C-alpha cells in the first residue's frame, strides 16, 4: 500500500507490504520527493504496531484512587461530554480549550477547528505548530502575501547556484533531503550553512558560518549592507516587483561587516566572501528552518533573510528564491485549515467578515455564532486554570509537557485544570496527567491527507486494521460533538471530511477545492496553487512583494555572569519531536538527552566526555552526560529536546507577531 512516513514534513513516500502477520516498509522509488530513500525512522516506522504500550481502551481517572483505570468508550465520552457541558454553563464557552498538533492530518486539523468553533463554541483553540514554523509563516505572509513553506518543489534546489541554509540541519532532521544538496554540488552549485553547530549538514557545505545563537538577523543585515555597497542589488526587480527597499537600505547601512562580526562572532572576512558569492550568483536560494525561526525575534529574522532574497531579485525566478523548511509532518496543512487561534479553513483570517460568512455557510451555522480570535499556543497554556482562563483542555496529537517551553510552569498550569482530556496512541507524558485518555488510531491504521513542506497534498492510506478498542480522532471528535449538543453533525469519514474541507477552503489563500483523493493518487500528490508561485506576481493585492526593515534586538535573555553560556536545543536523527513515538521503537537508539559542549569549555569546567554535567537556567535544571565535541561554539551548549527535561530549561519569551517561544537560545550555566 502506497503511503508516507509518519514523521517529518518531507513525508517520504513508502510502500507498506504485508508479509504474513508482519507489516514491512519497502521503497517507493517513483515518489519524487525522496525517490525511495528513507532514514532509519522511516524504515522502522511500523515499530509501534502491536507495541505493548499501545492504548486499546479509554482510561478514566478514578476519583477514589486517583489512578487511571480502563473504561468503555461510552462511559469515557459521556463523562467528557457531561463535564464539558457543565464547565461551559458555569464559566462560558471559552472555559473549554482545544490543543492540536502539526502532525494531525488535514482532515483532523480541519475538524478540530470546527469542533472548537461550532460544537464547543470556544475561541480557545491553537496548536503546537506555533512552536514549529510560525515565524516563517508570519514573515512570508507579510512579505509575499501568502505562506507556503516552499513556493517551489524541493528538487528545484538542485539547479540553483548558491543555496543558503539558515538554521537547518536537514542531513539529520530530514536525511533524504540531503541528496538534493549533493546533486546541487555535483552540478557545480555552492552550499552555505549557517548554524552555531557544525552539523552533518554543515559538513556537506562549501561555506560554513558559525554565529552566536540568536544572531542570524544581523548576518542578513550585513549581507544587505555588502550587496548594496557593491551595487549588486537588482534595481529593476526592486523597482518593478517590490516596495519598501529604501527603509531596508537605511537599516542595512548601519551594519558594516566589522559591526556584524562583533555581534555575531562571524569574521568580517567570511561575511565579505559570502557577500561576494551572492553578488556574483545568478540564482540564489535561501532556506530558513527552526534555527533561525524559534526566537523571540524569529519573524524579524526571517524577514531579514527574505529581504536578502528580494534585494537579489530572486523570489519568482526559476531555481531561486526564499523558502522555509517546515518541520512537522503536516506543519504546512496543519496551519491552513483552522486549528490556529486566528484562522479559518483555507488560510482565512477569523476576523475577516467575508471569511466568516463563507465558512459558516459551509458549516451550516450563522456566521455570528462563530467565536473570534483566541489565545496563541503558549499563551493558552499559560492561562489554563487561571481566573478567566480555560478550565478544561482537549489535546489531540501533542505531548505538551515535553514539547512546551518552560515546561515546569506548563505542567503546573495543567495541574490547575478541572478537566484534561488527551487523545493519543500511547500513554505519553501528557496523557499520563489526563483525567480521560482516549486511545486513537495511528498512521497506517487510518487514511488522511497531509501537506508536505512543498505545499504538496499527499495521501496516507490505511494499510492495516487498527487494534481492537481504538477509534480514529475523527470518530472521537464526532463523539464529543454529539455529546456537547453540536448544532451540526460531524462526519468520521476522512474522504467526506476532505471534501468538506475543500468547500470550506474554496476561494481562500490555500484553496483545496480542486483536490481529490483520486487526483492525489494519480499525480503523486497535488500542489495547492500549483508547484511554483510568484513567477508573475506576489499574493498581495497589488502583486508586489514587501521589503520589511528590521532591527536586531538580540536574545530575550542575554548571557550574564550567573548564566554565562548560550543554550540551544534541537533534534537528533533517530528521534522525532517529543519522542512519544520514536522512543518506543525498539530499533531506534535511545540514549537519553546529552549535553554537547566544546573541549575548551569542558576543560574550563572540568567536564569529561560521557560523565554527567548539570545545565541550569532561571527556569530549571537538567543533569545529563556530556558529549565533548569540537563542532560546537565554545560559548554554547546544545541539548536535544526529545526527552523530558530539556524544555524545563527553555525560555518562554514570545515573538510579538508569530507568538513563537525562544526555544533556540537562552542563558545557562553548566557545571561538572
Amino acid at each position, binding site marked *: 500500500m502506497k503511503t508516507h512516513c509518519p514523521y517529518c514534513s518531507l513525508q517520504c513516500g513508502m510502500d507498506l507490504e504485508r508479509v504474513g502477520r508482519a507489516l514491512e516498509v519497502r*521503497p517507493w522509488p517513483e515518489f519524487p520527493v525522496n525517490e*525511495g*530513500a*528513507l*532514514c*532509519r525512522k522511516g*524504515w522502522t516506522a511500523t515499530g509501534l504496531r502491536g507495541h505493548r504500550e499501545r492504548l486499546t481502551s479509554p482510561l478514566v481517572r478514578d476519583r477514589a484512587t486517583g489512578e487511571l483505570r480502563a473504561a468503555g468508550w461510552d462511559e469515557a465520552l459521556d463523562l467528557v461530554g457531561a463535564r464539558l457541558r457543565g464547565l461551559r454553563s458555569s464559566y462560558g464557552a471559552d472555559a473549554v480549550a482545544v490543543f492540536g498538533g502539526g502532525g494531525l492530518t488535514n482532515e483532523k486539523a480541519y475538524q478540530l477547528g470546527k469542533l472548537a468553533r461550532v460544537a464547543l463554541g470556544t475561541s480557545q483553540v491553537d496548536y503546537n505548530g506555533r512552536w514549529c514554523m510560525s515565524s516563517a509563516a508570519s514573515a512570508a505572509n507579510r512579505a509575499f502575501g501568502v505562506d507556503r513553506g516552499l513556493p517551489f518543489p524541493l528538487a528545484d534546489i538542485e539547479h540553483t547556484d548558491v543555496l543558503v541554509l539558515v538554521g537547518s540541519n536537514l*542531513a*539529520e532532521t530530514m*536525511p*533524504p*533531503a*540531503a*541528496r538534493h544538496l*549533493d546533486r546541487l554540488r555535483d552540478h557545480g552549485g555552492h552550499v552555505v550553512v549557517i548554524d552555531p553547530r557544525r552539523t*552533518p549538514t554543515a*559538513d*556537506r557545505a562549501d561555506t560554513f558560518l558559525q554565529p*552566536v545563537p540568536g544572531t542570524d538577523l544581523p548576518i542578513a543585515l550585513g549581507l544587505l*549592507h555588502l550587496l*548594496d*555597497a*557593491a*551595487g549588486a542589488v537588482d534595481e529593476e526587480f526592486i523597482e518593478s516587483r517590490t516596495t519598501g527597499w*529604501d527603509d531596508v*537600505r*537605511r537599516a542595512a*547601512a*548601519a551594519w*558594516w561587516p*566589522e*559591526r556584524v*562580526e*562583533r555581534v*555575531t*562572532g*562571524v*569574521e*568580517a*572576512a567570511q561575511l565579505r566572501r559570502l557577500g561576494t558569492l551572492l553578488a556574483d550568483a545568478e540564482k540564489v536560494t535561501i532556506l530558513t528552518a527552526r534555527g533561525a525561526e524559534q526566537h523571540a525575534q524569529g519573524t524579524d529574522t526571517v524577514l531579514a533573510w527574505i529581504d536578502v532574497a528580494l534585494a537579489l531579485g530572486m523570489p519568482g525566478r526559476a531555481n531561486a528564491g526564499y523558502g522555509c523548511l517546515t518541520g512537522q509532518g503536516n506543519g504546512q496543512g496543519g496551519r491552513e485549515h483552522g486549528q490556529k487561534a486566528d484562522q479559518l479553513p483555507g488560510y482565512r483570517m477569523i476576523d475577516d467578515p467575508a471569511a466568516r460568512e463563507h465558512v459558516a455557510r459551509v458549516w451550516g451555522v450563522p456566521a455570528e455564532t462563530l467565536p473570534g480570535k483566541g489565545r496563541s499556543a503558549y499563551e493558552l497554556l499559560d492561562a489554563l486554570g487561571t481566573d478567566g482562563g480555560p478550565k478544561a483542555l482537549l489535546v489531540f496529537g501533542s505531548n505538551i509537557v515535553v514539547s512546551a517551553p518552560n515546561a515546569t510552569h506548563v505542567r503546573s498550569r495543567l495541574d490547575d485544570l478541572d478537566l484534561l482530556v488527551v487523545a493519543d496512541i500511547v500513554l505519553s507524558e501528557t496523557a499520563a496527567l489526563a483525567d480521560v485518555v482516549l486511545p486513537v488510531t495511528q498512521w497506517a491504521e487510518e487514511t488522511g491527507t497531509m501537506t508536505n513542506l512543498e505545499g504538496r497534498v499527499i495521501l496516507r492510506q490505511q494499510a492495516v486494521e487498527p487494534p481492537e478498542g481504538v477509534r480514529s480522532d475523527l470518530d472521537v471528535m464526532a463523539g464529543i460533538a454529539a455529546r456537547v449538543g453540536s448544532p451540526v453533525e460531524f462526519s468520521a469519514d476522512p474522504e467526506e471530511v476532505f471534501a468538506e474541507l475543500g468547500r470550506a477552503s474554496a476561494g481562500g489563500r490555500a484553496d483545496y477545492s480542486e483536490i481529490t483523493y483520486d487526483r492525489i493518487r494519480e499525480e503523486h500528490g497535488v500542489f495547492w496553487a500549483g508547484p511554483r508561485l510568484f513567477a508573475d506576481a506576489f499574493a498581495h493585492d497589488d502583486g508586489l512583494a514587501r521589503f520589511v526593515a528590521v532591527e536586531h534586538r538580540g536574545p530575550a535573555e542575554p*548571557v550574564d*555572569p550567573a548564566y*554565562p553560556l548560550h543554550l540551544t536545543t534541537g533534534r537528533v*536523527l*533517530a528521534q522525532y519531536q517529543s519522542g512519544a513515538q520514536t522512543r518506543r521503537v525498539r*530499533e*531506534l*537508539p535511545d540514549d537519553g538527552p546529552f549535553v554537547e559542549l566544546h573541549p*575548551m569549555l569542558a*576543560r*574550563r*569546567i572540568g567536564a569529561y566526555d560521557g560523565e554527567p554535567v548539570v545545565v541550569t537556567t532561571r527556569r530549571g535544571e537538567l543533569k545529563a552526560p556530556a558529549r565533548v565535541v569540537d563542532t560546537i*561554539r*565554545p*560559548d554554547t551548549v546544545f541539548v536535544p529536546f526529545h526527552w523530558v527535561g530539556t524544555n524545563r530549561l527553555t525560555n518562554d519569551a514570545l515573538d510579538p507577531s508569530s507568538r513563537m517561544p525562544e526555544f533556540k537560545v537562552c542563558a545557562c550555566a553548566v557545571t561538572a
Partner: protein
Amino acid sequence: MRTVVVGAGMAASRLAQELPDVTVLGDESHPPYNRILLSAVLEGTHSPDALAMPLPEHVDLRLGTRAVEIHRDEREVELADRSRVPYDRLVLATGSIPTLPPIRGLVRMDGRLHEKVHAFRTLDDCHRLDAAVAHARNAVVVGGGLLGLQVARALSIRGLATEVVEGGEHLLRSQVDARAGAILGRDLKRLGTTVYTGARAVRLDDRGLTLDNGYTLETDLVVLTAGGRPSTALARRAGLDVRRGIVVDHHLRTSDERIHAIGDCAQHGDQVTGFVPPAWEQAGLLARHLAGEDVTYDGSRTVARLRATDLDVAVLGDPERAEGQVVEVTNPVVGSHRKLVVRDGVIVAATLVGDLSRIGQITQHYDRGTVLGAREPGDLLMGERTAGPVALPDDAEVCACAGVSAGRVRACSSLDDVRATTRATTGCGGCAPAVRQLLATRTLEGTRR
C-alpha cells in the same frame, strides 16, 4: 519635550531616530551618512550611494546650520545666522575636529589649505580627494593611525604610489606595541607602500613634502589623518565643564542638567572614545534615559578594527595600558602578532595583527567578560589543529540514516551488497564516500587486526 541635537553625525542621527520630538542641527550639507565607510568609498569597494542613513520623517533636520552659542539661561541655541532654537533638552554631538600638524606651507596666505592638501573626515573631503586621485600619480599620508592606514591602502589600491609618514616610532602607536607596528610596516611595504616612522613632515613647497630627517617626498597629494580632538568650543564658551572632552556623568549629562553630550566630543571618566559603537551605545542609552527609563552608562568596551583590504588588525580595549597578565604569540615569519591581556581569567584587552583567527570568539569573551579556564587564553591564540585520519573502529557508526556500523560495512563484499543488506548510502547519501573508503581498505584493515 523638545530635544535639540547639535551635530548630525553618527551619534546624533542614531539618537534622533529614537526620539519623538527632536531637532537636529548639522553643519554639513548632506543628510546623515555612514562616516566610517568613507575610506571604503575611496578604495572603490563601497558604493557612495549606499552610504546614506537618512533620518525618519518626523525628525526636524536642519542642514548647513552651525550652532555658535548656547544661551543656557534662556535655553536657546543661537545659530550662525543669529536665529535661535529653543530647547528643553540639548544634546551636544559635535564629534571631533582634525588636528592640523605644524607643517609650514600647509595653510596658504588666504587661510585655506594648500591645493595638494586634503583632510579626510567628511563626505565632501572624500569627494574632493576622490576627484583628485584621478589626476594624481602619488600621495603621502600624514599619520599612521587607523584612519591613515585605511586611506593609504585605499589610495594604493586606486593605483597611486603611496607613502605614509608617522611621527611616532611605529604605526598605530596609540593602539599597539612596537612589534605589532613593525609587522604592519612590513605588511604595507610588501603591498608597495613605503612607511617613514619617527619622522615628522615639516614643510610643504613646490619640491614636495620635506621631513625632519631630511627626506623630501615628491607628491601630488598630501592627506592629513593625524588624529583629531573632541570638538568642545561650543561647550567651553557656554561654561560647561570641559577637560579633554565635554565631561559627562553616568546619565551622559554635562555640568548643566539640561545638556547632554555623546560620541567623540564627550568624556566619561577618563574615556574619550572616538569610535562609532560606543557612540551608538551612548545614543541608545541616552534615548532611553530621556524617555524616563532608569538606565546608567558605565563606559564602553571598544573594539577597533582596521577596515582596509589585506591588512588585518583588531584592537580590543587598550592593550598597552590595561593591567593583567599578557599571553602572546608572535610569528614574524608569517607576520602575525596576537596578544591577550588577561585579568582574573577575563580578557580585558587584546591585539590581533596579521592573523584574525578566532576573533569572533575572542571578541565575544571580551565583550561578555567570560571567566576563562587557565589554558583557554593560550588555546584561543593558537591556530586550529587539524586531526590526522583515524581508522574507524568496527563499532563506529558510519551511516546515521540506517544506523550502520563500520564493521557491518566491512563485512559486505561490494557497494551493492552494502545497499541491499544494510541500506547504508540509501538515505541522505552522506556516508557514500566513507563506505567506499571502508570497502577499498577492507582487506588491509582485516589483515592488520
